[in-house]
């Protein structure tokens, strides 16, 4: 089981879905950000799994996963900066209260 690609991919898919659920359901901006991290990690898991089970991809997988981690870090930086900026304005981290612009 641990030696099949499908198992890892299913795990990755479930993690991705779970992250998505959180993203759709949570109200707190930082919680949503964490959910995005979960989703990115799910992708990374898939990438690593591909690398492990598909021989031609073995070397590149690790590199790609590393780069994705870096991107995730950059995204988190920007996201948290924005969260802090809006928190200064609105004094709440709850995203669904940021609905001054609509329709």
């Amino acid at each position, binding site marked *: 089981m641990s030696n099949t690609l499908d198992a890892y991919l299913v795990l990755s898919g479930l993690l991705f879905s779970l992250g998505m659920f959180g993203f759709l359901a949570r109200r707190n901006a930082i919680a949503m950000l964490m959910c*995005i991290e979960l989703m990115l990690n799910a992708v990374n898991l*898939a990438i690593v799994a*591909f690398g492990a089970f*598909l021989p031609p991809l073995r070397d590149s997988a690790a590199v790609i996963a590393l*780069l994705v981690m870096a991107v995730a870090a*950059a995204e988190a930086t920007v996201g948290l900066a*924005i969260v802090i900026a809006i928190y200064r*304005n609105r004094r709440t981290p709850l*995203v669904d209260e940021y609905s001054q612009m*609509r329709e």
Partner: protein
Amino acid sequence: MSSAELAALTPLVYVIGLAIALVVVDMVRPGDDRLVGILAGVGLLIGMGVVWLAGANGATQEVFGGAYRLDPLTTFLDTLFLVVAFLTILFTPDYLRPRGYPLAEYAATLLFAISGAMLIAGATDLLVLFLGLELLVLPGYMLTAYAKRDGLATEGAIKYFLLGSFSSAIFLFGLAFTWGYTGTTSVAGVAHRLEQVVTGQQPIAAGLLMGLALLTAGVAFKIAAVPFHYWTPDAYQGSPTPVTGYLSVGPKIAAFALILRLFAEALAPLKADWVAVVAVLAVLTMTLGNLVALTQDNIKRMLAYSSIAHTGYILVGLAAFAGAPPGSEAAKEGIASVLFYAAAYAFMNLGAFAVVAALQGRPGVTSQIATFAGLGRRAPLAGALMLLFLLSLTGIPPTAGFFAKAYVIAAALASGGLVPWLAVIVVINAAIAAFYYLRVGVVMYMQDVPSGAQPVTNSLPMRLGLVVAAVGTVLIGLVPGLLLPMAQAAAAAIL
């Protein structure tokens, strides 16, 4: 790194270097917006020269083992991105200065974003594409939030950021699937592998299709296609107006560049599968964009919906490519029409937002359409230019928007399958769109100047930028032959 590689990368490196230089200048002479502005403007003009020198011979040059390619498409798009950046820089100071925001970080961030766009333009590797995309959008989020004390700007930014990251994750998952299936990150490699799948008459694996779906959703978000468009109105409305102008043009065209590299090049063998989705998205996008724009009272929001509609028109060009037989003349026209539309759209849409920005030269001026009342008398030149841009957006000849639309329609007609019917939907939409564009004209020219309206004064860069946008809009419409061969050459490069 060979000298050839260096030469091919020069434009990209130059722009990144320029961005860093701006940061450095700001450290040396903090708060000197004037210097920063001149440096950025002149630097970008030189950048265009660099792009042209690099791509002068029109040949295709692959570097980094096929990860980056300098071809006519790259040159075309790079030039366009630099023009967008240049105009955005020109339009910005009038907005930022009265509100007390520095220009240096803004300009640097913008240039980082542009370097991302340029990377996409030349990327022929899935990973590079993804990184380019991130390099494009991350600064975009920050630009949206640039007026950080402004509640709406930050609201727009966080919406943009959250949804953008969400879609990036989706997109990345799609890339992973594609990569896992084809075993390569190279665009050419993917295309080659898929070609084998298609010609081998093998059933297309579910995993590949899922990857396709994830990729579609990811890019549809970036170009703001319905139903992935939700972020657009809020982000556009909230952003500082010059940023809105940039957002409506830069990331959108870059995302289309991504589509060209990814869908039209790597996934081209599967185009029979995705053409229907593109067509449906095109119809939904233009129709919803136009219908909702009809009811808007805020011009930035209205133009946001309008830009959604324009995404739909450009998608028609893409559908024209996808619907035509591979390698055919019609397929090339499809791509060329996308590029042409993008260029025309850049000038007219930036111009329209620039006029809005020009009116907001003082803090507290809203972007409600009512602000435009009597503009034709209050500021005849601004009014006339706005009218010009609006007419171009409507698609009235002899403006850029007209020929762009005509080109897209022609491409659709030349395509196969049901794609020609999109042409009819385009024109019906254009007629609907005319209503809200004309409504602004009505407000500007047919309503009285509100009492207490302040005179509109603009700086030299703003005026220069408006003139450039206007000249571009008229020139592309009047003499499309200037741009057309370039667009066609660029299109030919990826077929």
